């Protein structure tokens, strides 16, 4: 491991690493969505709003299940073998910590001046 993001050694197994992160993000968002809709349901009074939310809740639960099954099939998620899961957790935490230490965006990122007029105004 090193701090140079241009070093090719850091791209080893990159697709796997990236996809586990994205899939985990998708899973957490699906989970959060189910919880949010359930909370909203406990506050909603209009029958048609309740109906809409209830359908979306069931759809959200199904989507969450589908993402979880995909992750289990791809061996990105191990709810039944906690030590396997533990290894993945630690690995991705370490990896992301390493990325956190990199200087990824060395140039100024303020691009605001480019968006204050339409092309015709130039």
């Amino acid at each position: 491991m090193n701090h140079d993001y241009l070093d090719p050694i850091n791209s080893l197994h990159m697709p796997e690493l990236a996809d586990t992160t994205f899939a985990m993000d998708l899973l957490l968002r699906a989970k959060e969505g189910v919880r949010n809709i359930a909370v909203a349901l406990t506050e909603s009074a209009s029958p048609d709003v309740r109906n809409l939310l209830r359908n979306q809740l069931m759809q959200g639960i199904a989507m969450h299940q589908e993402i979880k099954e995909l992750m289990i099939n791809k061996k990105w998620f191990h709810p039944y073998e906690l030590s396997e899961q533990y290894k993945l957790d630690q690995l991705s935490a370490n990896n992301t910590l390493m990325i956190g230490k990199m200087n990824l965006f060395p140039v100024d990122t303020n691009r605001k001046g480019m968006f204050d007029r339409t092309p015709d105004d130039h």
Partner: protein
Amino acid sequence: MENQKLADHESLDLHEIINFKTLCLAKSKLMQGLVFDHDLRALMQKDVEQSMQALGELQAVYKRAPFEAPVPQNRPTPILN
């Protein structure tokens, strides 16, 4: 019933859900450009389609919020230096 105003508290929860769904849609859409695995990409596309449907339905209901107002074309003030 269809045109009845929503209660205050349910409107606030719709606000939370709509913002959350909007962020989810943006993320699932943009991340498709970054994933490698085809199955994961397909599932994300499915999530995008479901989210667009869901967001549209939520927007339609949100129109009945008591604090509903005409929506301008752009954000009112551009953030400039």
